[in-house]
């Protein structure tokens, strides 16, 4: 395909397959709540674009604050047509006083916010977005016909993706039309997808995987995208599988936890008549992939004609549009047995015995027209196969910038391998390539914590903890994650208590307050909360919190406990 932008593709689809359905939205029970053909989507998006250009000019930023649904898809394409830069964002929770929305707004300085009429009524949102212009998007049909606007150029910005970056240092990946078309083309060539490749997506549309694989990918292919609300999936994951069967879907993507959830919620009576044989590309990514999860998922759903060979582990990140590596279609899950103890020392060895065996899931190979390298994060030298280092990525899908953040852009997006030319993206993830070029991810350089596919920055959670009660010392806490016996990441909060307060506080009350703050502001469960004596947290001489040292001391039980409230 030779198109300069997603807008050109939308127009092409509206012209050549206008009566075919582009998007269907399902209720939590799996009933169709609404649908748009390519022409209807095109016309409705044009209507939004017409309203947009009356109040905004190309390059202005517009927040997209929508629950999953057709409105959000219309608003997204409306922004693209008007060349207004879309900024998809999670709908802020009512209770959450501090979340990422404020820092995203401070970074991208939006002119307007697009939302549904229902959300526009919410008082807390009116307050949060005070000063912005509002544009509500509903399902009123648009008027047919083209719009007299210049089409976006290849290098025009389509949207900003704020999935990476902490609250204190938000990073909005600048996603251009060229990057989107490049990455979708790479994926299409690797996967052999086409118009027939119906996708069923429950991932939120502010998440790169949901928006790009679901909406952008389906538009690129001219395929149907069936949408489910994320909350509906969490509540009734089998609805996802039933929809895949009903729509004969071919492609989906989801994080590891989704497959665990399907197994946990398996009910034979809800799976009657389900046939998963159309499901050819079952992408797994966005958080560490566990071999045991995939084994169980395959075993549980094989009776419904799920083919093990179609499960496709991969690796992706917003800085590379979305997809970085995928497994060969039909090849199934490839695992490698390694020594657990050697891996902790960042070395690749054969296991010394059953107890020492870790089965690592292969994340496939670099997508076409791209390169992967493993680089020593200190010396910046390229490392040979089977050596653990930082994953670096090169290709037309790699972003050129974070919005208004030149330092982070230079550091992460324009890196150079020692003695070589060419610019690379530094992923911040640790892993290795085997002799055939298959990628294995072993951990992370940065302290990023990933729980159920959501990124959490320790410094954000630490700050929420310290703000929760005056007895908790500012810059006196460390948050990290440790895997539990099932291999799931569990949050640990270590926090100093002020000298003046340590004899007066009720530890149980304080840990409750901390747990509440973490749950409400970060959607995460603080399993272990440890209060420690003043000035006993490991820090560098310059006063920087040493999270990995704190983690080691906690694991060894060597912190200076005030109380040891661990719940385990």
């Amino acid at each position: 395909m030779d198109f300069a932008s997603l807008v050109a593709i939308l127009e092409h689809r509206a012209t050549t397959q206008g009566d075919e359905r582009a998007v269907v939205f399902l209720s939590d029970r799996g009933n169709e709540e609404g649908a748009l053909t390519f022409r209807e989507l095109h016309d409705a998006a044009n209507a939004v674009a017409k309203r947009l250009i009356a109040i905004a000019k190309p390059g202005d930023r517009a927040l997209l604050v929508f629950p999953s649904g057709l409105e959000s898809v219309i608003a997204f394409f409306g922004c693209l047509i008007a060349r207004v830069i879309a900024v998809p964002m999670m709908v802020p929770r009512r209770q959450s006083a501090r979340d990422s929305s404020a820092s995203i707004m401070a970074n991208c300085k939006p002119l307007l916010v697009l939302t549904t009429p229902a959300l526009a009524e919410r008082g807390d949102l009116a307050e949060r977005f005070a000063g912005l212009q509002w544009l509500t998007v509903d399902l009123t049909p648009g008027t047919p016909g083209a719009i007299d606007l210049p089409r976006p150029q290849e290098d025009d910005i389509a949207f900003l993706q704020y999935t990476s970056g902490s609250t204190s240092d938000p990073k909005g990946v600048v996603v251009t039309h060229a990057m989107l078309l490049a990455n979708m083309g790479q994926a299409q060539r690797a996967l052999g997808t086409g118009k027939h490749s119906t996708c069923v997506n429950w991932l939120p549309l502010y998440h790169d995987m949901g928006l790009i694989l679901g909406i952008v990918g389906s538009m690129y292919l001219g395929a149907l995208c069936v949408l489910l609300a994320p909350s509906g999936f969490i509540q009734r994951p089998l609805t996802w599988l039933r929809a895949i069967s009903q729509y004969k879907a071919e492609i989906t993507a989801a994080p590891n936890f989704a497959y665990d959830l399907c197994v946990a919620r398996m009910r034979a009576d809800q799976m009657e008549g389900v046939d998963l044989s159309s499901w050819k590309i079952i992408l797994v990514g966005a958080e560490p992939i566990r071999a045991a999860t995939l084994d169980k998922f395959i075993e549980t759903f094989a009776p419904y004609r799920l083919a093990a060979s179609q499960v496709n582990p991969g690796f992706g990140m917003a800085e590379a549009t979305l997809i970085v590596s995928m497994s060969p279609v039909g090849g199934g899950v490839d695992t490698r047995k390694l020594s657990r103890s050697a891996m902790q020392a960042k070395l690749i060895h054969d296991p010394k015995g059953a107890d020492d065996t870790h089965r690592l899931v292969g994340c496939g190979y670099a997508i076409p027209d791209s390169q992967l390298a493993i680089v020593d994060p200190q010396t910046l030298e390229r490392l040979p196969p089977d050596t653990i280092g930082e994953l670096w990525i090169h290709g037309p899908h790699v972003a050129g910038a974070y919005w208004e953040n030149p330092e982070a852009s230079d550091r992460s997006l324009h890196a150079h391998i020692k003695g070589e030319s060419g610019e690379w993206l530094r992923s911040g993830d640790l892993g290795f390539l085997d002799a055939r070029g298959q990628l294995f991810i072993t951990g992370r350089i940065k302290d990023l914590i990933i729980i159920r596919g959501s990124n959490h920055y320790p410094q954000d959670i630490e700050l929420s903890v310290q703000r929760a009660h005056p007895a908790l010392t500012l810059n006196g806490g460390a948050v990290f994650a440790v895997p539990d016996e099932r291999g799931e990441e569990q949050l640990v909060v270590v926090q100093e208590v002020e000298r003046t307060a340590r004899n007066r506080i009720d530890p149980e009350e304080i840990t409750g307050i901390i747990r509440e703050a973490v749950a409400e502001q970060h959607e995460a469960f603080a399993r272990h909360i440890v209060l420690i004596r003043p000035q006993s947290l490991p820090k560098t001489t310059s006063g920087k919190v040493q999270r990995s040292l704190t983690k080691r001391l906690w694991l060894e039980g060597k912190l200076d406990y005030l109380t040891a409230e661990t719940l385990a």
Partner: protein
Amino acid sequence: MTKQEISDFCVNQLAEILRIPKEQVDVNAKFARLGLDSAMTVYLLMELEDRLNLELSPETFYDYPTVDALSAYIAEKVASPGQPAAAR
């Protein structure tokens, strides 16, 4: 089911979800104070729906934010004539 039975059921489920001893589940503590995130709330909701054969909206947990309040509400809902529990 009586309010007490529903409350005991919630406590058992929460102990399992949070992996803590039952004695540590305070029936008068807000769910957020126990540390429940929204996914965990949904797990509890699903277990209640399965056990009691009724439908609950996630909003219920905001309106009745403790085990005690929630079980009182559900006990009334189960008992109240004219509003039979929805069939699944």
